[in-house]
């Protein structure tokens, strides 16, 4: 549904589109243009089926928000469906539906994006609508008052009643002192309760400009015809100076941090997050981010990967385990390990098992065969990912938003293939240390449930 708060992880890089070794073809089939108003256009030709994905990406996400107004990027995303001077509230979705389109939008920490997927002959119609709301959004206060209620319901659904989300929210707010990554994308409830229509309008006026936008179009299209259409519809918007972006650099962490969250659940959960480097635009030769990505995959990239094998299958200390690392993003990065406890096991036991597994990587390194397995997966995914036109547009857009070029994707994938077991060992040893570690624990609380009282719950303890 509208707004999925996407957070791109290692898996996205692996499982979605691009074109490594497709160097020759991927690049030949991808075209980049810039309009005089600063809007960037990227067209990926893929003629396998007569459909098109049309996306506009604004480089404005929750990391651009300030305290007291958290969640406004996402709220504005909702308001973008509430009418322009020409298209009244709700009409946008009706018009897209009429041409058989699928549409939605999502907000992340780094950006906000809108998309439609249509049969190729309908592209002009949805482009016209999307371009219109880049400049002419005009919602009234009554619409805002209803929609902010919807957003609060969204927060209740995704976070308030979801212990894993609460844990993640606390983890981020604890790991970061200063970086705006400490705020949830959906916003703190209190900020939502106090948000005004004018906050959303200010956000729109500040960031929704052609010079802050990238249009990505993938599918059965002719790039020259596309450029003409984009100039016609998006070319009328005028560039404007964007607000000053303060760096908001996170101070260096100097020791372990711990946080506990009490929430209704049956099992304890544990999340460990280390501050780690990311890839910097223009410095694609830095080995460490690639090594960290491969480390994440060695730990959790397939069914027999290290943590699943030792913690879930052999030691049976946790019920499941997941590892995440985003090599590219606008803000700072975490290397994250999340688990839920197996029955009768404590978070202390799980933490100790995780530390042991990581120490083993640090001390003894990894096998060449483990790394090769991960690299084969990366290569085969290069072919699989081309099955999805939408996925290809997603990858291009998210890469661009992180400050990289879509052209860098191939370079990154090639670089990934050159990483050695020793380099993976080195980053494990160097970065997965207590100085930059935050540990978050979900302390499960009994929940009042009629099901329990009715004796229907044979699954209860």
């Amino acid at each position, binding site marked *: 549904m*509208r707004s999925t708060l996407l957070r791109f992880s290692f898996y996205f890089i692996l499982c979605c589109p691009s074109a490594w070794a497709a160097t020759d073809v*991927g690049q030949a089939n991808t075209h980049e243009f810039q309009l005089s108003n600063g809007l960037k256009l990227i067209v990926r030709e893929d003629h396998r089926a007569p*459909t098109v994905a049309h996306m506009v990406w604004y480089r404005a996400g929750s990391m651009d928000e300030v305290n007291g107004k958290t969640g406004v990027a996402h709220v504005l995303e909702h308001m973008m469906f509430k009418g322009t001077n020409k298209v009244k509230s709700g009409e946008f979705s009706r018009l897209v539906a009429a041409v*058989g389109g699928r549409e939605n939008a999502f907000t992340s920490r780094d950006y906000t994006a809108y998309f439609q997927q*249509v049969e190729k002959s*309908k592209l002009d119609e949805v482009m016209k609508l999307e371009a219109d709301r880049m400049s002419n959004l005009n919602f009234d206060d009554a619409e805002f008052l209803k929609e902010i209620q919807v957003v609060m319901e969204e927060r209740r659904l995704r976070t308030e009643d979801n212990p894993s989300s609460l844990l993640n929210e606390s983890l981020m707010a604890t790991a970061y002192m200063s970086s705006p990554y400490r705020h949830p994308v959906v916003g703190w409830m209190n900020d939502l309760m106090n948000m005004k229509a004018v906050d959303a309008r200010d956000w729109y006026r500040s960031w929704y400009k052609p010079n802050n936008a990238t249009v990505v179009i993938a599918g059965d299209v002719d790039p020259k015809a596309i450029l003409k259409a984009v100039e016609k519809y998006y070319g009328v918007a005028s560039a404007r100076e964007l607000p000053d972006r303060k760096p908001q650099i996170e101070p260096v962490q100097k020791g372990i941090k711990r946080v506990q969250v009490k929430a209704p659940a*049956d099992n304890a959960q544990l999340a460990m997050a280390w501050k780690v480097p990311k890839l910097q635009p223009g410095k694609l030769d830095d080995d460490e981010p690639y090594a960290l990505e491969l480390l994440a995959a060695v730990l959790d990239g397939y069914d027999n990967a290290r943590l699943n094998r030792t913690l879930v*299958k052999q030691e049976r200390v946790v019920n499941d385990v997941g590892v995440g690392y985003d090599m590219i993003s606008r803000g700072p990065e975490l290397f994250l390990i999340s688990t839920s406890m197996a029955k009768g096991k404590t978070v202390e036991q799980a933490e100790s098992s995780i530390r042991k597994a990581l120490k083993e990587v640090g001390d003894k390194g990894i096998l060449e065969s483990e790394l090769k397995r991960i690299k084969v997966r990366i290569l085969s995914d290069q072919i699989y990912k*081309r099955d999805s036109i939408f996925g290809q547009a997603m990858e291009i857009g998210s890469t661009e938003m992180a400050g990289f070029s879509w052209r860098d994707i191939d370079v990154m994938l090639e670089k990934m293939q050159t990483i050695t077991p020793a380099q993976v060992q080195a980053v494990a040893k160097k970065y997965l240390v207590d100085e930059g570690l935050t540990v978050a624990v979900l302390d499960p609380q009994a929940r009042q449930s009629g*099901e329990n009282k009715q004796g229907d719950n044979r699954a209860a303890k």
Partner: protein
Amino acid sequence: MLLNELIKQASMTIALVVGMMASAQAILPIEKLDSFKGAQAYLVQTKALPMIDIEISIDAGDRYDPAVKSGLATVAGRLMNYGARSERGLLSEAQIADEIADLGANLGVSVGGERAIMRIRTLSRKDLRDRAVQLASAMLSAPTYDAKILAREKQRMTTALQEAQTKPESVLDRRFRKSVYGNYPLANSPTVQSIANIGATDLQQFHKQFYRGDRMIVSIVGDVTKTEAVEIVQGLLQRVPQSGSPIAKLPEFERSPVEPFSQREVIIPFDSQQAHIAMGMTAVTRSNPDYFPLLVGNYVLGGGGFVSRLMSEVREKRGLAYSVSSYFAPGKDAGIFQAGLQTKSDQAALALDVMSSTISQFIANGPTPSELDAAKANLVNGYPLRIDNNRKLLDNVSSIAWNNLPLDTMEVWTKQVEAVTLEQVKAAFQRNLAMDRMKIVVLGAKNK
């Protein structure tokens, strides 16, 4: 690197195919392959990418679970990944996982109400493809069902079940199924006890009884010739028995019975910020002639995303919920019709009222002419998006085969949508749904 060359070749293949496919918009035909081991097999050839997607549907879903061993079909399916006897000897769970990873393949089993589904995605190069097929063949024909692994997995499932009991959406779903399915086995959900009752022998027996050729359908989409596809089917099923002992008939799947109004509603107190509400009843099979009128009608009612009536009444006009929708889930069995939403716990009564009256009015009056036109326009114009990659094609082929639909279903789909009339929608909704037959489950509601 093993795959480098392959990928370079793949890139060239794409470059060549691009030109040829640009003008071709005809829907790719489904080819029926000769039956093997009693199994049906179907193929759609797509040459643009050097990959193959395979799906094996097995008539071995949750509906065959004995009540006291609810979860049996799911455990039997899940453990197929965790050890099998191949022609080369015993494969451990670690060996299977490593082999899948080394091939750059995806291979897994999932189990739903009606069928168990094994999915394989592999590169089409013959040596890689053959190894993936061999591996799948071993899992399909001779899983080991090791007792130690079973004990571990039972423990994991139990923990997950107990966790699920603390989640509003899971508790609602279990209770809703129990309410609507009556005597049909899908009314039961796995419990700690029913999982505890499952032993390794049960898995062996279940597998022997249900995983056989005459209960399987193989669907293949991708870069293979018809001859190669036949080889794949034969490779997958070579060691699968063609048939077996007779299987007890499932209880009759009945329409949700008419009951006194006072028993329609189940109220579950639950300490959550939101109330979760589900409403529905059993409805139609996929082959029912009312399928298309219901599909088109439900788009208007609650299936059409942001433009549906439920969305408009509940979310757009009143801001009561983030998501609200309705759907039919027809299969070989009469699947359910279900509508649902989540709302702040103190406004549950209002939200339920709006949802009920919206559905009730729709059943009574059907869509307006303009709503019907809009629904048909969306479904017809949007049809290419339902078949624009291998994965989606595979879903379509598999569903067509599973539900015994005509092989030209994809070609005539838009015509069937276009042919739907207002009267048909209204009649179909009135024939298959009735407010006084729908069960309602409300979890976590609080009075103001």
